[in-house]
Structures are given as structure tokens and as C-alpha cells.
């Protein structure tokens, strides 16, 4: 990664993140209860007023380790513009390819426990941005932030040092690339896949009346004959219909994936992929040409790219 990038990122060291970030809600019993239920924490000082009154706290307190929850942004999206220094730094790291994030270290000090009605706000400083490190997750930079939490009176109630790793998701090794799903080969369609392995796109033909048909099946729909043979297609056709698949993604395929219904010049249609073209440029009716693609040692399938000219 270029020195200019790291210099730009490092310019954030020592910078305050921005104005104090206030919690959306005051410390309240509902959020404490949800937390304790999810964590399975049965400590009565968090949820049982009577037991809490008898405790050293003299009343309900929030679990100290719940600290960050009081100022979390929640599901609200970040504003598109005008973010704070942390947002700016994250955007710089994102732009350099370090798009994933994982928290690695957290140190919290509690100066006092929080009570119902306390309203926290957080101020943060970006402490450091590490050199690029190789990690099990991928190459990345550790970003360390220090935060102070104040209550509604401005009293410092807790402090935290938090470290995250911003990293590039590891490149998938080619050996790990999953294979395309295998077709379900039957005695009716085996010729099609066998032909593809030999570089031929075969069409089933009725031996009695000469009708072509696809997908393969045992009986002619026109004359009901069970006798058939095959003819080799020229590989020329046009795009009859298509969809561009973005989601859900199956690892063996590249996305966006153009799934097309190809009208062969012989008259039959088959489902295939349209390749070698920007999905945005695919149009119904465009002339196509066969390209046999060997996906691995066992699987070769007909694909189509735009016809030249």
C-alpha cells in the first residue's frame, strides 16, 4: 500500500473524533432486561428492585459491561455526508481496500455503576493506526480509539480503549473455489453432456418425424415416437429472454450472473449463461455464438457470448 495512503490515515492520530456522541436513551430497565435475558445474566442488582435496594448499590444498576450499548447508534444508517473523524478514517481505509472490520481488544474502566435515568455521552480520540499487518483474516491496519463516557452532569463515569482491525477479506485460493453444481444426468439427457464434453452442442431429433426438441425427453411431443437421434447445432442463435442474477450468490458462479434463454437458429431454445459482455449491455434479440467452457475436468457446458460484428 502506498505511503501516501498511510500518511493520510496517520494524520488522524491524536484527533478527536468529533462532538460528544449522546446515547439515544437514558439508562433504562427495558434495555437492561433485554441485555440480561440475552446474556443469561441473573444478577439481581440489574433487574430486581428489592434485591438491588439491599445490595451495595442501593438500587437497580446497569451491568457495567453493557457500557457501549448506551451510546450505540443502533439500526439507524450513518449520515451519507458530514460524518465525524472516525467515519472519515473508515472511509479512507475502505477506499484502500480494507473494507472489513473486526474488534480485537477492549479495555473498560468503570468509575461508578450506572443507575436508571443516567444519560451517557461519549467523546473519543483516535490514538493510533498501525502499519499494515498480516493477520489470519487478511492484511489490515489496527485502529485504536480511546473513549470517555460522561453522565448528564458531565461526570466521568467510564473510560474505554478499543482496538479494531480494518482488513482486506482474504483472497479465496483457487483450490478453494467450489465447483459448479453437477447436472443431474439421466439416460435421456446423457447425450447432451457427453456431446458438450466433446465440444458439440447436440439437439435431440425425432427419428420418425424429424422434429427437434429440447430439453431432452423420451417421447416426441408431435408424433409420440420413442425413437430419436441427435444433430449438432451450428451454435448460432439469439437471446430470447434473460435475467441478471445478483442474489442469492452461489460460490461457484461469478456475479452478476446473466442467465439467458437462447433461441438457436435450429429452432429449439436452451437455458445457458451469456458471458463476455457487461450485464448492463445484454439485450433481448442480441445475436449470440456458442462457446464451450470447461469448468473443471468433468464438466463442460455450452455458454454464449455476443456474436462478433
Amino acid at each position, binding site marked *: 500500500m502506498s505511503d501516501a495512503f498511510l500518511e493520510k490515515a496517520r494524520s488522524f492520530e491524536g484527533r478527536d473524533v468529533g462532538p460528544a456522541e449522546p446515547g439515544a436513551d437514558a439508562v433504562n430497565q427495558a434495555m437492561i432486561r433485554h441485555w440480561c*435475558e440475552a446474556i443469561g445474566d441473573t444478577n439481581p442488582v440489574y433487574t430486581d428492585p428489592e434485591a438491588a435496594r439491599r445490595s451495595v448499590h442501593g438500587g437497580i444498576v446497569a451491568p457495567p459491561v453493557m457500557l457501549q450499548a448506551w451510546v450505540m447508534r443502533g439500526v439507524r444508517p450513518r449520515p451519507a455526508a458530514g460524518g465525524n473523524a472516525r467515519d472519515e478514517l473508515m472511509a479512507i481505509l475502505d477506499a484502500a481496500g480494507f473494507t472489513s472490520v473486526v474488534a480485537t481488544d*477492549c479495555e473498560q474502566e468503570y468509575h461508578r455503576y450506572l443507575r436508571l435515568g443516567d444519560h451517557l455521552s461519549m467523546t473519543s480520540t483516535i490514538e493510533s493506526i498501525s502499519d499494515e499487518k498480516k493477520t489470519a483474516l487478511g492484511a489490515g491496519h489496527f485502529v485504536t480509539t480511546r473513549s470517555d463516557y460522561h453522565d448528564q452532569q458531565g461526570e466521568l463515569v467510564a473510560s474505554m480503549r478499543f482496538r479494531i482491525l480494518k482488513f482486506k477479506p482474504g483472497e479465496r485460493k483457487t483450490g478453494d473455489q467450489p465447483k459448479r453444481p453437477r447436472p443431474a444426468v439421466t439416460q435421456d439427457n446423457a447425450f447432451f453432456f457427453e456431446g458438450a464434453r466433446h465440444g458439440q452442442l447436440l439437439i435431440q431429433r425425432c427419428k420418425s418425424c424429424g422434429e427437434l426438441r429440447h430439453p431432452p425427453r423420451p417421447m416426441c411431443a408431435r408424433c409420440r415416437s420413442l425413437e430419436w437421434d441427435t444433430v449438432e447445432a451450428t451454435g448460432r442463435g439469439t437471446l430470447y429472454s434473460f435475467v441478471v442474477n445478483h442474489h442469492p450468490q452461489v460460490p461457484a458462479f461469478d456475479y452478476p450472473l446473466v442467465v439467458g434463454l437462447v433461441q438457436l437458429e435450429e429452432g429449439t431454445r436452451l437455458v445457458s449463461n451469456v458471458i463476455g459482455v457487461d450485464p448492463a449491455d445484454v439485450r433481448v434479440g442480441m445475436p449470440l455464438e456458442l462457446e464451450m467452457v470447461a469448468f473443471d475436468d468433468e464438466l463442460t457446458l455450452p455458454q454464449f457470448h455476443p456474436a462478433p460484428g
Partner: protein
Amino acid sequence: MTATTTLAYDDVNVGDVLPELSVPLTRTLIVATAIASRDYQDVHHDPGLAQERGSKDIFMNILSTNGFVGRFITDWAGPDAVLERVKIRLGAPNYPGDTMVMTGTVVEKHDGLVEVAVKGANSLGDHVTGTVRLALPRDTT
């Protein structure tokens, strides 16, 4: 289950071992704890996006790990124990279907304060290692 009575400072000794806590990491647990901590990062609830970001599945967020460390300590120490500092480092992610087993040992005590070394391990290795400093009452009578 949190002890109903709190340990007294004088009853705790360096080398004491905390009762083990086994946490079955269901998918529901990972999502519920993330949401209870108001953490809506997709890697904690959306398997597809978690995979795109280089993870094999969704994984527990660090706020919840803190939550389990806190629970593990007061389950042992009791309701009058007061946590002063929690310092943790994350390692192997907590993925759904795994189990995290939490263990701890008292490593230091002075002036009413006790320091406990904690560890939460799953089938991949140590998910969390760290230390917790807590204050215990001198006399619980």
C-alpha cells in the same frame, strides 16, 4: 446463576479457580446478544454478508463477549461484587453451533481488589482472554 451471597475479600485466595461456565453458541444467542447491545453490524446477523466480508458465518460481537465475561465473574463472586476494570482480547470467533467454555483463576489480590484471569475457549481456540479487576466486600456478615 448468580450466587445469592457475595464472596468476602478475605475468603478469596490467589490460585482460586472459578466455576466453569459453558455457553452454547446458538444462532439465536449470537443475534439476540448483538441486538440487545444495539449492534446491527451485518456480520452479527446476516450469514451471506458475513461470508462476503471474509467470515465463514455470523459471529458474536465484542460487546456480548464483554457481557459474558461480566456474567461469568458475578455468577461466581455474587451481587455485591463491583467490577472496576475489564480488559479483553479476542481471538477465535464465536460461530453458531460451537460452545464457549469460560474458565478463570484468581491471579492477584490487594487492598480489597481481586484480579481474575479469564478465558473463553471454543472448538477453534481461545475466543477471549483477559483480566477483570473487581472489588469485594471485606465483611459480608
